[in-house]
């Protein structure tokens, strides 16, 4: 056993000793966990510091007349623009347009990935049929397919949503297949020896055992959805945050471009937090298994 620094152990009230090698390794990898409040303070400080630097930079551009200040708007200008759009109602139209595409596109992508990935992971026969096709398409960067989607489906909502479905399908499909394949064969043996029939085995053992990795894939899928929606909204969109950015570029509205970008970041962060919430709720067992 190895002693932690005593005051650290005492503060967390968990005793002074690391009780196992895994704990020691995690401690070594992550460093000593900070007390919660201090961690929060550091995070908030970092964000405020970044905003201060940004303000300073944009202020210096104005003061020293380095270049046209229109190119680097300060955070307050950006916030002002976002508030202005929020008050006149335009902002919500764009946010909702983007969100709707992401939700529908990602949702169908996830459904398709599960509908194909679960059987492909479970039945080697299905895997041998589905995987080569997926492996053939996967190395093509999804963005290369965007113009094709527009040619096939047209410039409207269909191509944007379809494109998100297509792009998000791959990581979610692959993690789902892998997750099902990785299920401990001993768990399967244990369940069969307790009398599990094939569908019971799937619902009560394979699915819960694969869930953590499937959720990791879903997390990837959501991030990718926000990644590709912006680009597809650059082309032929009338609404959406990607459209706001492209529109801002045409008219040198830098605060609008930055504002839309920040909002996209916040949406991405919120969706990731939402998945984190689901994970904490459903995967309590996994967290306690890894500590």
């Amino acid at each position: 056993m190895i002693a932690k620094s005593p005051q650290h152990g005492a503060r967390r009230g968990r005793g002074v000793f690391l009780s196992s090698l895994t704990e020691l390794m995690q401690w070594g990898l992550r460093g000593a966990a900070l007390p919660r409040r201090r961690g929060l303070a550091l995070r908030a400080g970092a964000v405020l510091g970044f905003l201060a630097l940004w303000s300073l930079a944009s202020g210096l551009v104005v003061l020293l007349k380095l270049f046209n200040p229109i190119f680097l708007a300060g955070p307050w200008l950006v916030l002002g623009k976002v508030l202005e759009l929020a008050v006149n109602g335009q902002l919500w139209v764009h946010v909702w347009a983007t969100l709707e595409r992401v939700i529908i596109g990602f949702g169908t992508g996830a459904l398709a990935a599960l509908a194909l990935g679960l059987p492909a992971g479970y039945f080697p026969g299905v895997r041998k049929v589905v995987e080569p096709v997926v492996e053939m398409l996967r190395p093509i960067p999804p963005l290369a397919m965007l113009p094709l989607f527009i040619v096939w489906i047209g410039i409207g909502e269909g191509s944007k949503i379809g494109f998100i479905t297509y792009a998000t399908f791959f990581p979610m499909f692959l993690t789902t297949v892998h997750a099902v394949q990785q299920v401990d064969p001993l768990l399967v043996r244990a369940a069969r020896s307790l009398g599990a029939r094939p569908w019971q085995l799937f619902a009560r053992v394979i699915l819960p055992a694969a869930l953590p990795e499937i959720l990791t894939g879903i997390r990837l899928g959501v991030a990718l959805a926000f990644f590709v929606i912006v680009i597809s909204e650059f082309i032929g969109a009338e609404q959406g945050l990607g459209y706001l950015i492209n529109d801002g570029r045409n008219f040198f509205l830098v605060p609008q471009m930055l504002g839309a970008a920040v909002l996209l970041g916040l949406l991405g962060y919120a969706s990731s937090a939402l998945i984190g919430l689901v994970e904490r709720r459903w995967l309590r067992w996994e967290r306690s298994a890894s500590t």
Partner: protein
Amino acid sequence: MVDGVGKTFGRGGGAGQVLADIRLEIRTGEFLCILGPSGCGKSTLLNIVAGFLPPTSGRVLVDGAPVTGPGAERGVVFQEYVLFPWLTVAQNVEFGPRLKGVPAEERRRLTERYLALVGLTAHAGKLPAQLSGGMKQRVAIARALANGPSIILMDEPFGALDAQTREVMQDELSRIQRVERQTVLFVTHSIREAVYLADRVVVMTSAPGRVKQVFTITLPESRDRFAPEFTRAESEITRVVKEEVAKVHE
């Protein structure tokens, strides 16, 4: 009942015969230990009885019916515990009855009974990750018992535990067995463990595994590891096992 079971892995020239014509009959309520040097195929035999592996020759009969795959009438306790990590202790124990569609009230009664039997009533709501190795194995034993199998197969169930916990678990299992009178097929490489727990001990030869000798342990049900009769049985079996271990090293 194990009827002339043989197992060969691979085919042709490189094929390795692991088991040769094993014949065993396990009586109802009997605790039978299979003992042998490592690599003698005792775990393979257990896997065949469990239905995880098909035999190359011969067959296994349980209550007169031939084994074709895993089934609820043959409970298994693994060396690696193998609890369902997302289920609580109580949910693990009621897993089998739940699959059969046993009503909730009856399941609760079963779970309570078997958790009490293994002394884990206070831990019913915990997750497996929160338990020690010995406690996990108690849950696995309770889970196997609660499913009401004809026979329980145990594959070196205490092999992953430290020496002290191991003895405590042997005491526990011996006590449980006096209550339950369950038919058990128990694989181990510990002679002491076999003598402490078994009604009969089957010593296997080194590869290909055959039944070398069967010992009937006539010690009282509640055994004393330091009694002279215990030591005598232990040394008698040790002598036979050593012959086989020596063959491996020749």
